[in-house]
């Protein structure tokens, strides 16, 4: 039987690290009265749209579903490429059909999980990377001028990483037969939500 190589104490430590990473700036953001910015603003930004949430969860879900190197490769590729998209948005470099791309990301990534698709890792990474551009650009464009750049970026990236982690955690259920059904059903739900955004039902 396959067993995770990650000791539970180690996992807990890394998870705690991720959580505590955000504590200081969270505190300072509360003191920034009158300013829209800082860590809380950045942390909340990826959580403000269901279309963003489902796509980022789908990345982790698909990574865990593919297993092996894909489990960490996809969540590494996404924030890196998303930051490129975010930089383009911040600098005002246009990207066409951003909202359509975001909706399509939910549909495609959700369908990949639902259909148990197992393309080569580079194809999966390319697909995730292309969609990450749209998400990053949307976040970068919507960024308020007054935001505290450093803490905003930290919050934004950590929030995205935790969404991937949520997807990976859910995706690890594939070890069990019932879990495999649940994960694929989750992919189907994500694809449906993506359709809802594409056709403006949501």
């Amino acid at each position: 039987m396959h067993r995770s190589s990650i000791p539970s104490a180690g996992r807990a430590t890394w998870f705690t690290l991720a959580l505590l990473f955000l504590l200081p700036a969270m505190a300072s953001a509360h003191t920034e009265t009158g300013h829209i910015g800082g860590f809380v603003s950045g942390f909340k930004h990826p959580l403000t749209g269901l279309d963003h949430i489902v796509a980022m969860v789908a990345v982790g879900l698909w990574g865990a579903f593919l297993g092996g190197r894909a489990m960490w490769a996809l969540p590494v590729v996404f924030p890196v490429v998303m930051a490129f998209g975010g930089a383009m948005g911040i600098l005002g470099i246009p990207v066409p059909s951003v909202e359509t791309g975001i909706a399509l990301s939910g549909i495609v990534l959700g369908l990949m999980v639902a259909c148990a698709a197992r393309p080569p890792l580079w194809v999966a990474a390319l697909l995730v990377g292309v969609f990450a551009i749209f998400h990053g650009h949307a976040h970068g464009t919507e960024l308020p001028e007054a935001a505290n750049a450093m803490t905003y970026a930290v919050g934004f990236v950590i929030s995205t990483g935790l969404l991937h982690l949520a997807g990976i955690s859910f995706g690890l259920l594939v070890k069990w037969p019932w879990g495999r059904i649940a994960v694929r059903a989750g992919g189907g739900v994500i694809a449906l939500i993506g359709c809802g955004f594409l056709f403006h039902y949501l």
Partner: protein
Amino acid sequence: MGGGIWVVLLLLACQSQAHAHMIIEGAGEILSGAVHPLMTPSHLIILLGLCLLLGQRLPLDVKTPLWVLAPASAVGLLVTLSGYITVVPVPLLAGIALALGAIVAWGKPTPAWLCRLICAVAGVAIGLDSGVDSGTAWAIFKTLAGTWLSLNLVVAYLTVCVSHGGEKPWARTGIRVLGSWIFAISLLLLAFALRK
């Protein structure tokens, strides 16, 4: 590795207290200088990237990078005494963190010369960005000495901590994920700085 992670957590948890380039009231000059790089997010992210980079390399070699980092940071700090440079542009600091994040996320063996070069650049940049605004010459010197001691000790200690997880596959993955986060944060910071 567990102890090291708690130290990282503690350092990151201190960021909100940042009062860059000022002597903190109630703290001695050396202590005030010592906490400065730990409470300045742009410095801390570079230091964290440096520790991940050096700790990722096997077999562990702390001595060689420190032989570069220690004099480089000392030079940067001493130059601030002249008063000509006390602040480094944000794009430069973000660029250093960006490079560190990219190398750590890439995860391939890093040549020794590249590590030494990054240590030198990072040391000088952090040193130059840690200038003290006010105080007597002796107080400023003690503050800068505190900064120099702390940043070198932190890099040495955390590098050893990170290296303890270097042979565990899950820890190596975690290090690369952290590297990708540092890269993404730095890239966004760079874009912010260029927009302004």
